[in-house]
């Protein structure tokens, strides 16, 4: 009868507490731009030798739009807004046919269409609050074969929540027909909880309902092994040293050639990861806090060790 009591007993982290204790309490305001602006994120990742999709070139102003002609030398690429949130404004070109471009959905575009898309990005069509934005063109990730078959179009990604630099929970996000190739849970992607020790999915959630199978592929959502899982965790732990956000989500993709790449970082990661994992975040967050004040100053390897101990 008492739903509040149940949620509290299961240690479910709710929005008010996340905002007050974790995002406001652990993430200094001045660090937000580092992760809200994907170009700055990329530059920092590159500077510290963390893997990310290669930046081809960027377009900051309208008069630079002719730079887009450089795409003539590519076969496939992705156009992104620097400040777009939740996968908005991302244009994935999978192939070229003569002087035309083919989107991953099969739609064919001309170079002029792509220029129009870039000018929309610059005008802030996809940025939060409609402020002016910048666009960039980067390497198109092609998904590792082990994961590709589980997604309906789009690229699945792995989100790792880091609390004070310690990975505390993670999930695999599978795009669906409903999410239109995007990997955001509230847009309809499937979230699969991960066994942190083994890198294997344990179950899944669609919207706020637990499911056994992917709605489009029909494959079970449990038992999917994440390739290069140990590398993903090790990289995630190192991002904390670079960005310093105490409560952060790191999104990884696994490229078929390059392995794990950091796609973006998030200073306000969502709460549905708890539904995907069928368990609340609070017990493990409290366990990290129980290690005392010095957790942040542990070395990356020690924090990784701690994470694996916590889930064991």
């Amino acid at each position, binding site marked *: 009868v008492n*739903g509040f009591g149940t949620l509290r007993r299961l240690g479910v982290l709710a929005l008010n507490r996340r905002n007050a204790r974790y995002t406001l309490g652990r993430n200094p305001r001045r660090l937000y731009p580092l992760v809200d602006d994907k170009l700055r994120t990329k530059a920092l990742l590159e500077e510290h030798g963390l893997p990310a999709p290669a930046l081809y070139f960027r377009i900051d102003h309208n008069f630079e739009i002719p730079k887009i002609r450089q795409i003539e030398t590519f076969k496939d690429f992705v156009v992104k807004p620097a400040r777009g949130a939740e996968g908005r404004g991302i244009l994935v070109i999978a192939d070229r046919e003569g002087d035309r471009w083919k989107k991953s959905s099969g739609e064919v575009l001309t170079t002029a269409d792509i220029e129009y898309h870039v000018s929309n990005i610059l005008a802030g069509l996809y940025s939060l609050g409609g402020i002016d934005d910048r666009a960039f063109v980067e390497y198109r990730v092609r998904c590792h074969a082990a994961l590709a078959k589980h997604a309906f179009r789009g690229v699945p990604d792995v989100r790792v929540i880091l609390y004070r630099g310690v990975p505390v929970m993670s999930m695999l996000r599978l795009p669906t027909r409903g999410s239109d190739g995007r990997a955001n849970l509230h847009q309809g992607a499937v979230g699969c909880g991960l066994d942190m020790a083994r890198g294997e999915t344990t179950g899944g959630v669609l919207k706020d309902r637990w499911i056994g199978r992917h709605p489009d592929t029909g494959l079970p959502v449990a038992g999917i092994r994440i390739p290069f899982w140990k590398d993903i965790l090790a990289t995630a732990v190192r991002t904390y040293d670079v960005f310093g956000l105490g409560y952060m989500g790191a999104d990884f993709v696994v490229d078929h050639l390059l392995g794990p790449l950091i796609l973006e970082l998030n200073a306000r990661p969502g709460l549905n990861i708890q539904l995907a994992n069928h368990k609340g975040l609070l017990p493990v967050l409290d366990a990290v806090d129980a290690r005392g004040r010095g957790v942040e100053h542990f070395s990356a390897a020690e924090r990784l060790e701690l994470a694996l101990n916590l889930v064991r």
Partner: protein
Amino acid sequence: MNRRVYFLAAGLVLVAAGVSSFKYVRGGMKISPEASRNLWRVNVSMEIAGKGERAKVRLTLPRDTERQTVYNEHFENAGLTFYVRERPLTGNRIGFWRSELLEGSRTLQYACSVQLKGLAFAFPGDALRPVNALEAYPPEFHTWLNPSDFIQSESAPIQRSLKKVVGRERRIGPAVRKIFDFVRGDVKYRSERGSKDALATLARLEADCGGKARLFAALSRAAGIPSRLVGGIILKDGVKSVTHVWAENYIAGRWIPFDVVNDHYAAIPHDYLELYRGDYALIKHTGLKKFGYFFVIGRERMPPVDYPWSLYGLPIHFQSTIKVLLLIPVGALVVALFRSVVGVPTFGTFAPILLALAFREISLGVGLLCLGIILFCGWLLRALLDRLKILVIPRLSIIVTTVVILVLVMMVVGFRLGEEKMLFISLFPFIILTWTIERFSVLEIEDGLQAALRALGGTTVVAVAAFYLMAWNALRVALFTSPELLLVVMAALLLLGRYTGIRVTELVRFREFVRLGKGGPG
């Protein structure tokens, strides 16, 4: 960190309580028990019904005099424009309610608290009546010496009566006494509809308070003593609509009251509330189909506080703006409660408050209807504009422009169809409604139609809740009397800011967990 917030909140509540009790104690100590018996609360209620044209109601309001102190004034203008003017000669304070186009019934109210004193005068009566009064007194007294429409002091019957009553008495004191005794004794009291003038009273020797006061004033003026009528109410617990009229004569440098009806010679009892001076009417109105009024009179417990920082010290016609201002934090509290505790999504923090304020102006039903129509049209338009691939800011501006055109069309069509009141919908609610659709569109672009509709529903629900709380009269009066209550609101907001509990809507979001918790692990 938690504890600091609690301390701060407790501190704010303490400051508010301190300010309140300081005001109470300071006000209470200044008042003697005798005076506190003469505290009254007077409420004038006017029921009016317009006939669809320009309407105006004027009511003379009490003012401070040496024997009466007016405080804690309050008015309800029911959508009419209210303003106060002071008349130069009499010093009367007149409140006007006006509307360019009044339809339907309204209730106008004026309420105030008064502290009254009874006074008795002793005046030297030996001074002689001037032979030529107009020369003896400065020009501002000529109004009170010359005859007027109903006080015909120069007519032959009055002059004859004066000779008979006063005779050869030259001294002011005995002359006034003789006039007073004549009007009190020889004119019978009889209540009637519409008071007689001085001549008719003299002819019939029968009149109500107005007629008797006019005769007294006419005889006094004929005798060369400045004299004027005073109107007011005799205060008594309960409901009444009877007013009273008495007279004042200017003797030995001051105005001295005389009430021939209740036999108060050079005295005024403590329950007489003075409302106006001169031979005027308490209430006048034009453009009304129906008009009725009554007074509700009761005892007041709070004495006038000599507190210069009170909001009541501001001009009364500015007070309605302040009342709206005071409601905004209350609305913000409602929004914060709904968002942090219940988890209702809204368009930002201010949209629900502003919507609630708009509803206050154009009524809840009309407001919701307008919101629905405008949002639907705007959404339809946005869907069309989407195909043209236009940038966000120009696109939103086009929507706003269209809403303005829509409003203009509604006004013109309404006017042609004879619905003139369409023209008088105030601008403010429309600006708010238009702005709401912008927020709606932005959210639709960012999070999709479903999220936008959810936020719209949430905004409407919160706005309606805020509307009802804002309409709660006791709360408005309390906030106006004690604006320090805003500190309590702030304390509540501080505590809400530290609320880390689970929102009600999260029960739905995490319902799988709730089910898991009930069914045991599995």
